[in-house]
């Protein structure tokens, strides 16, 4: 479904000079598959998501979604096909939660779609237990509550592809599970592809079909966690020696020391 070939992104800055953030990335996400991007801070995970969504202009990339070239799609068609949850968002200028979630319907809006849009928004609110927050102002909510609302917005956007940028970083265990389960359900029920940038290796391994390890804009390793969560890879990517074990076929990775 999503196919990315030779995606490079160069960040130009007068002070620092050109810096290669993404270096010829090849990546694919199949329908119904959850792929987790892992890697250290600054590895290019967020930039990769933005480049796929064409928010960030990239160089020399061939990107297709279900065979269609992304660059040839209109902004509106892109928004119907790809839902994006940013890492964090600041003020929403006193928008209420329900208005924030309803924005996910913006690319689908037609003159007669109000009833269906409302139904989808309410369903997403129920799915993520947001009823109590629905009429509150987004600005007064905690980081974790905001993350769930942005996820709800992505759910009602009904994209073929979901791009989630650290959707669980501010969440407690209960809501981490809820968010990842929601992603899993979308992948299973709608056959959407889900690409998640995430730091928590255990949570990633618990839900992902595949992990992609990034370092300095390059794919270092990809595959099932059993293949790539090795002490050698962890040391190469994060620069720490780690204890890796597993229980119930879920890995745990405990950083031990700087080698």
């Amino acid at each position: 479904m999503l196919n990315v070939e030779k995606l490079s992104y160069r960040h130009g800055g007068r002070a620092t000079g050109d810096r290669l953030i993404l270096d010829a990335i090849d990546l694919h996400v199949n329908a119904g598959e959850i792929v987790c991007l892992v890697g250290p801070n600054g590895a290019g995970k967020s930039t990769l998501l933005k480049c796929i969504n064409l928010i960030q202009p990239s160089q020399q990339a061939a990107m297709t979604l279900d065979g269609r070239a992304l660059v040839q799609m209109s902004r509106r068609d892109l928004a119907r096909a790809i839902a994006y949850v940013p890492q964090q968002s600041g003020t929403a200028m006193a928008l209420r939660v329900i208005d924030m979630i309803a924005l996910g319907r913006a690319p689908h809006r037609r003159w007669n779609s109000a009833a269906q849009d409302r139904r989808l928004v309410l369903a997403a609110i129920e799915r993520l237990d947001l009823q109590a927050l629905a009429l509150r102002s987004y600005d007064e909510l905690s980081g974790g509550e905001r993350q769930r609302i942005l996820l709800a917005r992505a759910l009602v956007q009904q994209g073929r592809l979901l791009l989630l940028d650290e959707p669980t970083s501010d969440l407690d265990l209960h809501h981490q599970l809820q968010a990842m389960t929601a992603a899993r359900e979308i992948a299973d029920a709608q056959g959407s592809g889900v690409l998640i940038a995430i730091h928590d290796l255990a949570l990633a391994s618990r839900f992902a079909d595949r992990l992609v390890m990034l370092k300095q804009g390059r794919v270092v390793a990809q595959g099932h966690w059993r293949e790539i969560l090795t002490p050698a890879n962890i040391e190469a990517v994060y620069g720490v020696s780690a204890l890796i074990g597993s229980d119930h076929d879920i890995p745990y990775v405990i950083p031990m020391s700087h080698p």
Partner: protein
Amino acid sequence: MNTPSTARGALLHTLQRRRWRNWLALLAGLLLLVAAMSLSAALGVQKLSMATSLRGLFAPLLPQAWLSDIPRWQIELLQQLRLPRIVMAVVAGAGLALAGVAMQGITRNPLVSPYTVGISPAAAFGASLAILSGAAGAWSAPYLTVAAAFVSAVLCATLVLAFSALRGVSSTMLVLGGVGLTYLFSALTASVQFVATEQQLSAIVQWTFGSLNGSTWNEVAIAGGVLLLGAPLLQWHAWALNAFAAGGDDIAASLGFAVGRVRAVVTIVAVMITAAVVSFTGVIGFVGLVAPHIARLLIGGDHRWLLPFSAIVGALLVLLSDMTGRLLFAPVIIPVGIVVAYVGVPLFLHLLLSSRHKAAL
């Protein structure tokens, strides 16, 4: 424990009620505005009855027979003096408030207003340059001043637009650039004042106070026409403004909006409305900043409601301020630009303080 369906029913019910409340608030605001307009038309050195002023307000819509008992001079007082001034107050207040909401939304910055991005100071510079150029006294002087103010405002706006179109310019940089332009145009105006004669200086200072004195139907038609063209365009972009407010350019783009086009259209409309108003009235800086905030505190941040509601709040603010300025030390008229701060700031601070636990801003 609620089952999902009854919980959804409750939420639907609450949403329905909120919708009704918003419509009611809008209607109440409009009624209040009409009441304030007729009160303003009735009060003055010559007092008229409310019945007379209300009928005078809607005179073009009423059959002649309904107006036959009103003395000729009262009709003329209303139609030639008070009504143009009142309608101009409404147009100016609504226009500046709309421009403020649009600019705050598109830059996602609550500190932005037509004043802070330099448009009003630029208009003041243009006007003062025209006054200095010495055409004062000629028949064309008022038009020249208006035209110079307008051109200067649009020039400034073009600078702001060109600046914001540069790649990598964030909304914070846009605001800071606007602050820079504000200082530049203030310095230019001060320079003009420095070399002006006493008479010219007085005219320039008068202009920068912001006043509705001598508003004519022609002026109302031009400023009102721009407003009537611009307001629906802004309303059309209400969803896009929500998207910009929700997360800036990236999020608006990821939700399917053509960011560059929306930003250009909204900014140009806001600038044209501001320029059209300010060229005639002078600097009424505060309304564009504060009316959107008052409206946001009262009705929330959804631009579908916020735009019309801000327009009503802005219109009320300018109208009531002008009324106060006319009546307080009558027959001396205090310029509306001064009064609006005295009326608006306490109201604004009150709403701000009473909302501090709700974090509505």
